[in-house]
């Protein structure tokens, strides 16, 4: 793969079809900013967060997705998919990326 840094700065990047992501699941997209976790929930909403739990860096893409949240696989913090915020009483926030779905294609804005 050629260096994505130059190609995808500040652009909507097509990451694949929505059906590539299992409902209530996630896939990882490798980017210049590190791994990005792209989630799909039961209502086919799609979200993208940096794949790094604000607690100790756990890979959120590997967690269990429910409603609009994901439970981190390492110590079970709940992270909001829509805002990246940890659910109280835990405190922390993970970087978010804008997402859009056009047709059956998912795009993530990487900037």
């Amino acid at each position, binding site marked *: 793969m050629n260096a994505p840094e130059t190609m995808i700065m500040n652009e909507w990047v*097509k990451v694949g079809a929505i059906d590539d992501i299992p409902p209530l699941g996630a896939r990882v997209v490798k980017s210049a900013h590190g791994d990005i976790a792209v989630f799909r929930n039961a209502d086919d909403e799609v979200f993208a967060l940096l794949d790094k739990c604000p607690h100790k860096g756990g890979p959120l893409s590997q967690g269990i997705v429910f409603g609009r949240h994901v439970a981190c696989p390492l110590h079970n913090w709940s992270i909001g998919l829509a805002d990246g915020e940890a659910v109280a009483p835990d405190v922390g926030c993970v970087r978010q990326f804008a997402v859009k779905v056009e047709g059956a294609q998912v795009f993530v804005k990487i900037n």
Partner: protein
Amino acid sequence: MKKMKLVMVGNGMAGVRTLEEIIKISPDLYDITVFGAEPHANYNRILLSPVLAGEMTLKDIMLNDVDWYEANGIRLHLDKQIARIDRIARKVVAADGTEESYDRLLLATGSNPFVLPIPGKDLPGVITYRDIKDTNAMIDAAGKYRHAVVIGGGLLGLEAANGLKLRGMDVTVVHLAEWLMERQLDKTAADMLKKSLENKGLRFLLQKQTTAILANESGRVGSVSFSDGAQIPADLVVMAVGIKPNDDLARAAGIHCTRGVVVSDTMQTYDPRIYAVGECVNHRGVAYGLVAPLFEMGKVAANHLAHLGIGRYEGSVTSTKLKVTGVDLFSAGNFQGAADTEEIVLHDAIGGVYKKIVLKDDRIVGSVMVGDTGDGAWYFQMLREKQNVAEIRDHLMFGQSHLGNTGHQGQSNAAQMADTMEVCGCNGVCKGVIVKAIKEKGLFTLDDVRKHTKASSSCGSCTGLVEQILASTVGGAYAPQLNKNKPMCGCTDHTHEEARKVIREQHLLSIPAVMHFMEWRTPNGCASCRPAINYYLLSTWPHEALDDPQSRFINERAHANIQKDGTFSVVPRMFGGVTTAADLRRIADVVDKYQIPTVKVTGGQRIDLLGVKKADLPKVWADLAMPSGHAYAKALRTVKTCVGSEWCRFGVQDSTQMGIDLERAFAKMYAPHKVKLAVSGCPRNCAESGIKDVGVIGVDSGWEIYVAGNGGIKTEVAQFLCKVKTADEVLEYAGAFLQVYREEARYLDRTVHWVARVGLEYVKQRVLEDTAGRKALYARLLYALQDEKDPWQARAQGVAKHEFEALTV
């Protein structure tokens, strides 16, 4: 839709807790208005005593401040007393004329202190003990005067007396009965309590009836006189002789009241639009005076107000703890005993320890303890759950620490711990941090403490200690969680057992079907209920229910164990711990080819390859060509063996082959939690069969089978199940035992937890006595395992490819 109007009268602990519950489950249903007679938002009334004692400030004990009401869109009228309810116009009217109409009305007016009808009761300086105003009056008096007389030697009276003493007053407690707290303590306990309070400088006058309170020359209280003619000086008189439910409003509105507003099991009064909770109610003839029952009421009331229509309040058993620092006292249930009860008593008058447990038909019905109350919460839980204690009766008196369940450094008594001592070894939480969180954040339950401090939220071995800390910090307000009807999680009020039952009876085959049928509150559950339901479906309907990988923890979805850096570990199966040169050579080649950083021999007699990248997993498995060891799964893990009769000079049975046979038969067996077996070739027991879920020990005449051992967080020795003659019988009995466990235990129960709950007798009845039942169980296990594919080989061939590959951009 226009919101319905909910009005609450009485802004105290029970009412606000009910509102919190409503907001949690149905935030948009009601437009809420609250009237409170006090000028403060909701505070923790039970912590008034520490405030009086100077251990806390008013600010510390606020539970919900004004901002909370605002953030939740609740209209709050402070300092406004409701004067009447107009049931026809469906509105309430306050003393100052403010009106508010309602669709539903919630009465939570608490109770009023009882005032003795004696001359002088209205003099300045005579007060009761109920709210912030009273507490401030006492603090104020303590700064100016010398003699305090507390009338009433119950819980409140003693806490008031202790506080006033600490603030420098000379305090006399006057009590009518023969001993203190006669409704919670027997005479022995009360005498010990009296002695320890006397050591703190309090004075007591027992069996004294107060006849009058007399004024001094300036018109303020000056002395108290008794029926025997005696008289003592008093600059402050606190009456703490009892409470009566505050049902005036309801009574005046024509709602049926006896001693309190009469409510049904759904917390409705005789007017179904009007609910009542807290100390103002009378439920099945009982008016409660402690917080724990009020919270249970609040939960039920909220549930019905939110139109969910599940849950009934069926009454509570309460316990008492005195919140006087340095005095340890606990009482619950029928502590006096009766003709048909037995007592276990430990009394060490010099050491200041007294413990009494009252038993009826092998169940605890009451308990009273002074000096060492560490196990109060534990006894109380068994009392409420009506647990049969026949099997642990010998150890009962020595407490839970005797059965394990201690803090990280092995402490078993919270009271003796310094604030800086570590309670939770997994998360590094000290006692002081827990106490602080309980007080400042107003926590009442174990779950609350887990959420806010993380203590006891990982391995759980310090749970007993955390419960003690809770109990001693919040007093009788703490109700140990009832195991029996504990809901699965916040998504539902149903228990694990109910979910299993519905899945079986309704023949449900998918998670959405279960959630729909059982009216889950959340659209697709959470990370705690979904894996449980997925397991219940698969274990109830093997080959029928469809597995949902998204409802499995990552380890079971990726079939490898996630590590802290996001890489995975791979542990191939080595049946019975026996390997070959060819297998070892292949493992070595894989390690080289994929540059696996660590190779380790595990505690389970096999080899762990640590630090494998997720994308490499399918290739590693293909190259290994060995079956999955399920080291990552709630499933059969290892079967440890010793060399046995084939080589060992002591061996009497071929334990290695027995272990291999067991592992081959039960590999791929999913279970509520991980399952570990061991087989030793003689009673020297080199494979440690005594601490396994199923441990087998070869003896000259056959095999002994032990069950429900655990070598982990709390080491538990396995219990003897039976002795059999042949290897086939070992398979059948072990298999039947595991199958009952698979079919009936709660998800995440190890065998030891499950057997502790149902009793070994039950297991014996299912596996030993019922021969046909045993054979059927074993057949069901074999049926479930039949044709189960090896997950690694399937993935090496391309199953669930998306799980292991990143998306490319």
